[in-house]
């Protein structure tokens, strides 16, 4: 019964999306339309959320008569992973995606007060059109509630690599980010329909973009750390298509949130901001769906499930093509924004947008290129880290250098930029660059990265120098903290590239190994058992000077499905992380051990967290200020 109730709720929500779209399209007397559309949007969000709750319930009860549960769950799994397993598969994650989309639409309908009725109506119409397509995809091609007969005695289990707290938080965070950008998309479409592109639109769009961007930042950072500790080889970014799929919307959202500021503050970059809003959510859709369809692994896997693949392709074509066509049709009527000089805050933000767009374009081309080559010639090629690092590394450093000056420039024109303020950061950069040669050979990119990161650490704080800190708006604090986060993250990445030490060896209990400054003694192994796995646990003692650490890496064996995983033991000290992995036992009794000393690598994720924190502060600052202004306006009226 539960599955049928969930399916019914989903169908009803789809019908409401259709109604919302039709009413928005038909127009009519504005007050009435608003009064009708808002409750419809809210009901649609509530019903979808309810359907998603039903699916979670089915997973929690391990109802094996539901095909999705039987294929992806197991009665012996801990309850926490039963819940998280709901979105650890195609259909469940699609339902989560649509749920976020519908709930975002409901929130937009409930809380948006700045936009004129006409623009809000067009925006909600666009949001309903988006939801409608994805409801159709779920109901027609990816029904999560489909039954299975005969009912199997036991489920097939979840991939053990995914049995991790990471699964509980990582996909939902990313999806909230992806789909938060749908509101920016709908607002852009609404603005194009009503031909009303101005600061009011930017202010309505900004909180959504900031919120989505913060969640994407957290999602990507956390996902990177998850891969780092779970995969057991010390890598944290692989330029895998799935990672690129999350990076592309983030890059677009980063560019968007900078250009929105120009539109909100100065009324400039109108058409470009609209374009970015369309691109950002398009990247979310391309990312999620192309990856989900399996097409990126190979053109041939597309044919494995042609129904879904074709459906997805059609949806993408309609939405992205439609929005771009609308853009091309209406862009002529978007008034040109306020003028500015090359050397100005706007000029720096344009440069920022240019570099981010080139990075985005390169990642896009690089990710999809193997597909085109295979389709055109039948050859299978790989585009991976060597290509992406070579292109994005220098561009990222150029972007970081731009950050030395950009935030210090005046709006509109700056005839005498305050170059004294970038003298100190540049000096720091040069000193670190020179000093890095004391540490011996490292890649030029890592050396430059360390230098730029050190300089940017100082430069990012410069906008606060000489200001009354108490009266500095929260949004400015946010900017400073995010930019500092960029410096910190670059420092972590460069440090990992430059200084990591690796030791791979096979050892008998009692033997000692060295990795970097650490002496690691292998004390032996013990058997351990968990709820649905057994493991061999290694015991290591690492010493450096007076510091001694105990590390217990495990080699786990899961029964359903049978899989071996390595649980790395990672110890964080102030200047880096010691990363240890226990491998298999070799004939002759030695155990494989993998040891890494990664100085300052922690800064990488700390930087990501700072970037997100800055965004959060800016979001809070903007929302509070907006509320104060509205209340003041109301008082002035009264």
């Amino acid at each position, binding site marked *: 019964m539960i599955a049928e109730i969930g399916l019914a709720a989903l169908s009803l929500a789809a019908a409401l999306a259709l109604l919302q779209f039709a009413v928005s399209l038909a127009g009519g007397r504005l007050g009435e339309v608003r009064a009708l559309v808002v409750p419809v949007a809210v009901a649609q969000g509530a019903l979808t959320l309810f359907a998603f709750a039903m699916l979670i319930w089915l997973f929690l009860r391990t109802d094996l008569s539901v095909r999705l549960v039987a*294929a*992806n769950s197991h009665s012996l799994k801990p309850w926490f992973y039963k819940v998280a397993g709901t979105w*650890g*598969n*195609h259909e469940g994650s699609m339902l989560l995606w649509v749920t976020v989309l519908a709930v975002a639409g409901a929130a937009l309908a409930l809380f948006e007060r700045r936009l004129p009725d006409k623009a809000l109506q067009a925006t909600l119409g666009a949001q309903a059109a988006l939801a409608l397509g994805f409801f159709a995809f779920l109901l027609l091609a990816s029904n999560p509630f489909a039954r299975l007969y005969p009912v199997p005695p036991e489920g097939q289990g979840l*991939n053990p*690599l*995914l049995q991790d707290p*990471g699964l509980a938080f*990582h*996909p939902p965070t990313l999806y909230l980010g992806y789909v938060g950008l749908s509101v920016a998309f709908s607002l852009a479409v609404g603005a194009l329909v009503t031909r009303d592109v101005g600061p009011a639109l930017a202010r309505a769009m900004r909180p959504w973009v900031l919120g989505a961007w913060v969640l994407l930042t957290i999602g*990507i950072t956390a*996902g*990177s750390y*998850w*891969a780092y500790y779970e*995969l057991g*080889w010390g*890598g944290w970014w*692989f330029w*895998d298509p*799935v*990672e690129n*799929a999350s990076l592309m919307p983030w890059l677009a959202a980063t560019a968007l949130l900078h250009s929105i500021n120009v539109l909100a503050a100065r009324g400039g970059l109108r058409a470009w901001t609209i374009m970015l809003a369309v691109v950002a959510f398009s990247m979310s859709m391309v990312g999620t769906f192309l990856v989900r369809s399996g097409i990126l692994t190979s053109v041939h896997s597309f044919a494995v499930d042609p129904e879904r693949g074709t459906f997805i392709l059609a949806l993408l074509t309609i939405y992205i093509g439609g929005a771009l066509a609308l853009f091309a049709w209406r862009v002529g009527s978007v008034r040109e924004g306020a*003028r*500015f*000089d*090359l050397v100005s805050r706007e*000029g720096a933000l344009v*440069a920022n947008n*240019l570099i981010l*767009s*080139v990075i985005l*374009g*390169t990642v896009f*081309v*690089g990710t999809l*290129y193997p597909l085109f080559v295979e389709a055109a*010639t039948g*050859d*299978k*090629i*790989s*585009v*991976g*880290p*060597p*290509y992406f690092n070579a292109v994005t590394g220098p*561009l990222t450093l150029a972007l970081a250098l731009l950050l030395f000056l950009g935030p210090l420039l005046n709006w509109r024109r700056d005839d005498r930029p305050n170059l004294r303020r970038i003298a100190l950061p540049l000096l720091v950069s040069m000193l670190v660059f020179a000093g890095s040669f004391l540490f011996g050979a490292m890649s030029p990119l890592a050396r430059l990265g360390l230098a730029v990161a050190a300089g940017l650490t100082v430069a990012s704080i410069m906008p606060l120098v000489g200001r009354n800190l108490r009266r500095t708006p929260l949004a400015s604090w946010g900017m400073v903290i995010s930019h500092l986060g960029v410096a910190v993250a670059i420092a972590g990445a460069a440090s990992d590239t430059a200084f990591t030490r*690796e*030791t*791979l*060896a096979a050892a008998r209990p009692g033997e000692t190994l060295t990795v970097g400054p650490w002496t690691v003694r292998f004390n032996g192994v013990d058997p351990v058992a968990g709820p649905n796995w057994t493991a061999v646990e290694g015991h290591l003692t690492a010493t450096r000077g007076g510091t001694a650490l105990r590390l217990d890496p495990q080699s786990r064996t899961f029964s359903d499905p*049978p*899989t*071996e995983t*390595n649980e790395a033991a990672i110890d964080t000290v102030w200047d880096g992380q010691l990363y240890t992995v226990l491998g*298999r036992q070799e*004939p002759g009794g030695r155990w*494989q051990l993998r040891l890494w000393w990664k100085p300052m690598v922690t800064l990488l994720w700390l930087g990501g967290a700072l970037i997100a924190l800055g965004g959060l502060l800016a979001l809070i600052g903007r929302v509070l200020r907006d509320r104060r202004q509205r209340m003041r306006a109301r008082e002035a009226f009264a």
Partner: protein
Amino acid sequence: MKLLPLLLLALAGPALADSAQPPAPYAYRQLEDARQEARARALMEELRCLVCQGQSIADSDAELAGDMRHLVRTRIKAGESPSQVRDWLVQRYGSWVSYAPVLGPETLLLYAAPLLLLLGGGLLAARRLQRRRG
């Protein structure tokens, strides 16, 4: 996000199952010469593990990845240059195995893309700026 492709793998079943063979000596052991090892390591990071989802052989537990690591290390130890080893592997497994695509007619556009984007975007921005001034 690295792990999401594993969702698909989960459906594919135990693809990571091992054979009973002992691992090749250099699959999990470094070369004695640190400079040779650094060269081997850099190369291994640029070679695709053919049975994994988007992992290099430098960070995979798959048996094939271990064999390939052994092969790379042995050849580097024997004095071959990384590009020789790469060419040999490409000949044997096709361009799919190398994460660094070879520059050729097929990949010209790939390598030109960043430059074209930068030039195109730069020109567009410059023209807008000039019009604003004029």
